């Protein structure tokens, strides 16, 4: 019976043909390593966020008087097992961003941004950017002390732009001169509608581009897929399916056994505009930018610096024009890559520390480290073009 229904649908929708052409006949490099699974893991994390988010929306109230109670009473105590969904959503956001960061750094390591995949990288950058906005807007919704004061600090950042423009942007973000109902309303709308819709579109386009431009491979040499590739299904689906199960096992370990781990304690106090909490720092995924902003003595230069990091990340495919790809074949690039990840990690950890002069100094050192990676790329590329010509055009 089920088989007949299946055949009936297939005759009309041609799903089996689609499956054959898109999954089985689609050939990918054989040597994809574990880090290549971060992409599919991010997709799974995104799905988890959407599903858990839909359930949370059913009970959350975007109202300054009731938001805190709707989260901490209705969701955490009243509705059976809703606390679990909140836990999944909160831990999910952290895992999602962690996986996205790992995906980005893998992409940099294997030079997956180089021709013909520049557009894949650029779309990926915008996914990352919109994701940060989504996380930021979602953080306001519980209307706790950290939500409130975190957003006060965030909406202050544009005032670093001199003149009326910065102030205007800040007021426009808040919907007024202070954070209040209008701010909560618009961030709620952004968080549950606009930003996820943009993300869905961008993720779809990113996936299409992965198909259109093809998957890179760790060796950095383009392969003849017809001869050397393996079928996407079942080769990759089963391998990465197993990785995804492992990822989910770690994720649910945190969800079930580290309750409150991703819910900062300070945010369990209702927002109070008259009481500034002692430590206001953004969540870990923004700490790197925060440290750059904080370490540079001039507010305006700090603002320029962290925006420049984002711009350089976006322009990465054009900064690196070396004929070689993959850090496996590029010793100079490998060294600078180590500088990059150490700097990024150090900046993040520095963000959690108090802003002493020593820490500000260290912040400047690692900011310089971060910039040195991006700025060294054109130099490395020129050197490698020299090697390439000396070797008579051999890419291996």
């Amino acid at each position, binding site marked *: 019976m089920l088989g007949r229904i299946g055949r009936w649908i297939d005759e009309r929708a041609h799903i089996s043909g689609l499956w054959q052409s898109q999954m089985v006949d689609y050939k990918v490099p054989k040597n994809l390593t574990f880090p290549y699974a971060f992409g599919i893991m991010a997709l799974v994390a995104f799905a988890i966020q959407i599903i858990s988010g839909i359930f949370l929306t059913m009970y959350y109230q975007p109202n300054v008087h009731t938001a805190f109670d709707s989260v901490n009473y209705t969701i955490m105590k009243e509705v059976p097992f809703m606390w679990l969904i909140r836990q999944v959503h909160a831990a999910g956001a952290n895992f999602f961003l962690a996986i996205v960061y790992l995906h980005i750094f893998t992409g940099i390591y294997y030079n997956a941004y180089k021709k013909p995949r520049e557009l894949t990288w650029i779309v990926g950058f915008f996914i990352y950017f919109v994701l940060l906005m989504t996380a930021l807007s979602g953080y306001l919704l519980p209307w706790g002390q950290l939500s409130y004061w975190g957003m006060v600090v965030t909406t202050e950042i544009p005032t670093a732009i001199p003149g009326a423009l910065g102030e205007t942007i800040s007021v426009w973000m808040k919907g007024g001169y202070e954070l209040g109902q209008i701010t909560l309303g618009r961030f709620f709308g952004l968080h549950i509608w606009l930003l996820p819709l943009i993300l869905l579109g961008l993720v779809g386009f990113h996936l299409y581009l992965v198909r259109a431009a093809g998957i890179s491979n760790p060796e950095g040499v383009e392969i003849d897929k017809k001869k050397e590739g393996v079928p996407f299904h079942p080769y990759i689906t089963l391998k990465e399916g197993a990785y995804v199960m492992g990822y989910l096992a770690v994720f649910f370990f945190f969800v079930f*056994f580290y309750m409150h781990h991703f819910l900062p304690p300070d945010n369990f106090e209702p927002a109070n505009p008259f009481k500034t909490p002692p430590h206001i720092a953004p969540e870990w995924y923004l700490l790197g930018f925060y440290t750059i902003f904080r370490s540079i003595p001039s507010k305006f230069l700090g603002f320029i610096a962290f925006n420049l990091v984002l711009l350089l990340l976006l322009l990465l495919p054009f900064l690196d024009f070396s004929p070689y790809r993959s850090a496996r074949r590029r010793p100079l690039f490998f060294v600078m890559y180590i500088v990059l990840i150490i700097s990024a990690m150090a900046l993040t950890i520095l963000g959690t520390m108090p802003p002493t002069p020593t820490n500000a100094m260290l912040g400047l050192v690692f900011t310089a480290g971060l910039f040195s990676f991006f700025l060294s790329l054109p130099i490395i590329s020129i050197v490698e073009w020299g090697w390439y010509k000396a070797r008579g055009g051999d890419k291996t």
Partner: protein
Amino acid sequence: MIKVVFFTLLALIFFYIIWVNNVFAPHETYEMPMQYKKIVEDERYVKEGKQLFEQNCQACHSVRYDAVYPSAVQANPNLKALQEQYGKVLPKDVYESTFYTELSQLKESLGKVPPDLSTMYIARGKEYLFNFILEPQKVIPGTSMPPVMAGRPEDTAKIISYLRSVSEPPPSEKAKRTLMGIVTIAYLIIMGILLWVWRGKILKRMGLH
């Protein structure tokens, strides 16, 4: 191989610091003897803790998520009618506007409305609460909180046990959490292993291994 180990270790150390135990960030630590910590975690003391709360704290503090309001509010005849309309736990705006007079009186005598304690257990942690309730002036100099529990550490721990029970999900669901966690994770691991074994078989058939 060295690179794999290096990058894996680096990522693990980084996420350990950021997520699990940030050794670099400043921590305020408060001492609390083990025997009192045990009382806080013990479900048996919740009821007694609630009684102690009503005797010692309710004059000023509310625990709104447990429908416990300051004594003056509790004495207001409007409360019952409102609870029939909105449920036992009143919405914050309704509560604050209806009992404005009572709350203002508290504010007048203490300088501010004493905070609601529904989520205070998670917000501040048991060690902080224990020290603050026993010796308020030592933790926040100049606070208007009186040392009502001075010299009664065991009763203090019982009150904290009550506050813990209010801020956490219902105990029946909490008990299921461990089982759910084990089943979910075991399922995922078994599925992962099955997929891996299946992949191995297919690879053999395809002659790729």
